[in-house]
C-alpha cells in the first residue's frame, strides 16, 4: 500500500473510533454553546468556531485523543489479511497461544468442578450479601474469606516452560554448534535489537544527558540539572500535551509531577463519565459474584499483602482488580492481542450463540502476581476511579504483552530473547559459566520481566523504570535492565557453582539504582 492510502485509512479508522466518544459530544456541545459569543461572526463561522476551540483548549484535548488512538491502532495491514493475522502474524505462535489458553481454561473448569464453586452464581449475589459488600467496599482487606482451597490458575514459571518449548516448524534447529548457536532457552528467531541499535533508539539515556535517577541525587547540585528539568515538566503539564509529556518522560518524571504526566501520556481523564463508568463496574461487582474474584483475593493476599511497600494498598487493589474483571471495554484490546477471551454459554444454552458470553467479562484470567501490575500505581493515585483509569490504559497498552505469546517487539518472547542475546553477546563468559552450572539466566530473570520488575525493585526505582516504558512506548527497557543487573553482579555470579546460589546472588534487587545500570550497560559497554 502506498503512503497516501495508508494515511487516509488511518485517518478514517481514528475518526470512526472517536465518533461516538464522549469527547466528540463534548466538543459538539462546546461548538454549539460558543455561537452566542461576540467574536463568532456568521460570515466566517467555521474559522471562528475552530479558533475558539483552539484557544479554549479543546483542540489540544482532541489532539491527545488522536495521539492515544495512534498508540492503540493496529499497524497498517494488507486488505486481504484476516483478523487473526492482525492479532499475530506467525501461525505457529497463534497455535501455541491457543493451546496455552486451552490449558488455562481446562484448569479453571476443573477448579470450579472440584471445589464445587460455580464460575458465576446462578442468580447473582443475594440482596443481603450485596448490601454487606457495599458497606464494606472500602475495607475489603479486613475480610478473611476462606481461600485455602483456591490456588492460582498458573504461575509465571509454568508460562516460561511453554515459551521454552516454542518452536518454529520451519526453522532448521539442528544441533551443530556454529556462529548462530544460541545458548539460551528461547529458540525462536525473532528480530531483537542489539546495543548499537538500542543506543540510537534510546539516545536520551546517553551519558551526556541529565537523567532523573542519576542527576537528581543529593550530591549533585540541583541547579546543574534538576531545577530546570522540573520547570520544564511543569510547563508540559500546563500545556496538557500528551506527545510532549511522553517525550519528557524519557528522562524521568519528577515525583511531584509524575501522576499528572502519566495521566497525560495515557490520556486518562477523570471526568464525570469516567467516575460513572467506575461506579457502573462497581455495581457489576456487587451484583454478580465470580470465581475469579476469589483468585484475585488470593493473589492479593499472596503477593501485595506480603510486600513491605504495598501491603497498605490492599483495599485499593481489590477495588481496582474486581472492577477490572467486569470491564467489557477491555475486550477491545483483543483485536491486537494474540490472546482470545474465554467464551462460555449461559446455563442450559450451550451452543446457542445468542447466549454466548465472555468469562470473565473482561476476558483476562488473572495469574499469580497479576496484582503487582496495579500496586505501584497506588503510590501515584489515591482516587479509585482515577487509579482504575490509569491502570486499565497501562494494561491495554503494555502489560498484556507480558503474558501472551506473540512475535511483537514488546512481547514477552521478544524480551526474553533480547535478554539472552544481550547477555550472550556482551557477557559470554558469564553466560557460559551459568549454563555450565545449570543456571540458565532466563530462569532467574523471567520472573522479573513478567512483572516489569514490580515487587523486585524499590518503588522509587520502579517508577523511574516505568517512566521510560511510557516515554519510549516499549517494554524493551525491561529486558535491558535484566541484562544490566546480571552485568552488575557478574563478579559474584562467576563464583557460584549452582542454580540455588546464583538465585541467592540475585535474590535482593531492592538496593539497585536502575538508571545508572541501564545507562552504563547501553552506553559504556565496549562493542
Amino acid at each position: 500500500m502506498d503512503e497516501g492510502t495508508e494515511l487516509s485509512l488511518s485517518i478514517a479508522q481514528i475518526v470512526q473510533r472517536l465518533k461516538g466518544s464522549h469527547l466528540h459530544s463534548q466538543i459538539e456541545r462546546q461548538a454549539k454553546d460558543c455561537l452566542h459569543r461576540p467574536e463568532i461572526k456568521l460570515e466566517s463561522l467555521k474559522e471562528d468556531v475552530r479558533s475558539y476551540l483552539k484557544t479554549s483548549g479543546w483542540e489540544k484535548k482532541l489532539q491527545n485523543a488522536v495521539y492515544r488512538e495512534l498508540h492503540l491502532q493496529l499497524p497498517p495491514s494488507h486488505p486481504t489479511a484476516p483478523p487473526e493475522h492482525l492479532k499475530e502474524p506467525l501461525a505457529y505462535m497463534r497455535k501455541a497461544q491457543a493451546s496455552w489458553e486451552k490449558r488455562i481454561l481446562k484448569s479453571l473448569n476443573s477448579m470450579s468442578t472440584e471445589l464445587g464453586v460455580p464460575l458465576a452464581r446462578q442468580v447473582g449475589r443475594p440482596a443481603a450479601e450485596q448490601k454487606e459488600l457495599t458497606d464494606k467496599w472500602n475495607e475489603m482487606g479486613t475480610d478473611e474469606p476462606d481461600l485455602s482451597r483456591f490456588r492460582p490458575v498458573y504461575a509465571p514459571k509454568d508460562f516460561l516452560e511453554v515459551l521454552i518449548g516454542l518452536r518454529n516448524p520451519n526453522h532448521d534447529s539442528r544441533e551443530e554448534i556454529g556462529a548462530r548457536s544460541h545458548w539460551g532457552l528461547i529458540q525462536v528467531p525473532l528480530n531483537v535489537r542489539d546495543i548499537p541499535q538500542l543506543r540510537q533508539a534510546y539516545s536520551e539515556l546517553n551519558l551526556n544527558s541529565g537523567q532523573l535517577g542519576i542527576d537528581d541525587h543529593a550530591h549533585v547540585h540541583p541547579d546543574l540539572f534538576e531545577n530546570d528539568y522540573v520547570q520544564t515538566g511543569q510547563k508540559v503539564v500546563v500545556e496538557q500535551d500528551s506527545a510532549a509529556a511522553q517525550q519528557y518522560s524519557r528522562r524521568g518524571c519528577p515525583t511531584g509531577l509524575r501522576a499528572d504526566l502519566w495521566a497525560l501520556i495515557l490520556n486518562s481523564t477523570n471526568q464525570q463519565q469516567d467516575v460513572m463508568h467506575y461506579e457502573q463496574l462497581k455495581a457489576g461487582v456487587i451484583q454478580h459474584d465470580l470465581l475469579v474474584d476469589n483468585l484475585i483475593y488470593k493473589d492479593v493476599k499472596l503477593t501485595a499483602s506480603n510486600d513491605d511497600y504495598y501491603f497498605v494498598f490492599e483495599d485499593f487493589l481489590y477495588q481496582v482488580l474486581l472492577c477490572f474483571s467486569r470491564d467489557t471495554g477491555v475486550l477491545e484490546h483483543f483485536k491486537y492481542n494474540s490472546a482470545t477471551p474465554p467464551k462460555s454459554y449461559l446455563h442450559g444454552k450451550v451452543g446457542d450463540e445468542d447466549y454466548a458470553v465472555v468469562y470473565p467479562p473482561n476476558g483476562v484470567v488473572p495469574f499469580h502476581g497479576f496484582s503487582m501490575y496495579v500496586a505501584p500505581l497506588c503510590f501515584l493515585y489515591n482516587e479509585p476511579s482515577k487509579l482504575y483509569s490509569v491502570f486499565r490504559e497501562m494494561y491495554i497498552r503494555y502489560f498484556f504483552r507480558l503474558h501472551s505469546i506473540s512475535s511483537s517487539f514488546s512481547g514477552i518472547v521478544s524480551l526474553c530473547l533480547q535478554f539472552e542475546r544481550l547477555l550472550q553477546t556482551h557477557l559470554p563468559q558469564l553466560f557460559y559459566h551459568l549454563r555450565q552450572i545449570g543456571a540458565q539466566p532466563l530462569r532467574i530473570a523471567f520472573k522479573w520481566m513478567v512483572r516489569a520488575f514490580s515487587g523486585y525493585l524499590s518503588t522509587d526505582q520502579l517508577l523511574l523504570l516505568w517512566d521510560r516504558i511510557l516515554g519510549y512506548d516499549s517494554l524493551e527497557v525491561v529486558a535491558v535492565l535484566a541484562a544490566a543487573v546480571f552485568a552488575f553482579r557478574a563478579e559474584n555470579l562467576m563464583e557460584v557453582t549452582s542454580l540455588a546460589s546464583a538465585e541467592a546472588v540475585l535474590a535482593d534487587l531492592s538496593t539497585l539504582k536502575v538508571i545508572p545500570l541501564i545507562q552504563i550497560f547501553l552506553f559504556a559497554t565496549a562493542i
Partner: protein
Amino acid sequence: MSKFSDGRQPISCTVKAPVYLQIGESRAETAQSGVCVVDVALPFGKAVSIEEITFKNYYTAYITVRLLRRTSARDGPTKWCTALRDLLLMDNPHTERGSQDYYSIHRDQMLVEADHVVSVRLILKQPSSAWLAFSLEEIKIFPRMEPEPEKEVSDWLSDLILVDQHPDVEGLPDPQTVSSSIQQMWALTEVMQTNQTTASIGRFDVDGCYDIDLLSLT
C-alpha cells in the same frame, strides 16, 4: 480506490509447482541454493493487463517478478522482461519479521508496463540457511478493470430525452432550489443515521443473567 473494491475477481491462473534450483552435479551431492522459481500461467490465448499481484509470504526473503509479454500484435512474438527486481519481503532473512505477511505488488511499482502478459515468473530467494522451506502462498493476479466507455450509455439516453421544456410555473418556488434543499436535508438525515455511537453499553450479562457452568474449550 481499486485496492479496496471487493468486487475484483482474480484471474484464474495455474500456479505451477515451485522449482528449487540445486547446486551440484550428481543427484547425491545437491545442495540448496536458496533460489526457487514459480511459474504462473495465465489462461491460454488471453493476453492480460495486470493491475496487482497479491500473495502471502512463507519465509521468502526477496522476490523478482518477470513477465512474458506479447509485443502488440495478436500472435506476435513473446519476450521476457523483468518487472521487479529483488523486492525485499523480510528485512533480515534470518529472523521472523515479514516471514508470513501478506503483500501486494501494484502495476505502478513495476519497471515495465504489465500489458499483454501471457505468463508470470516469480523468482524467490532466501539466502539464509535457517529455514527448511520457503515459498509463496495464495498467489492471486488481478487484471486491470477497463473503465466502462461512457459514450454508450449517454448515446441511447440522449435518444430518449425529449426537448426539455420549462413548465409554466408562477408563484411557486424555483424547482431547482427546492430539489437541492430536499437533497441537502436527505443527506443530513443520512449523516445522522450513520452517526452511530461507537461506545459500547458495557453490560456483560444477558438480561441480568450471568449463570455459567463451564468454559467452552473449542
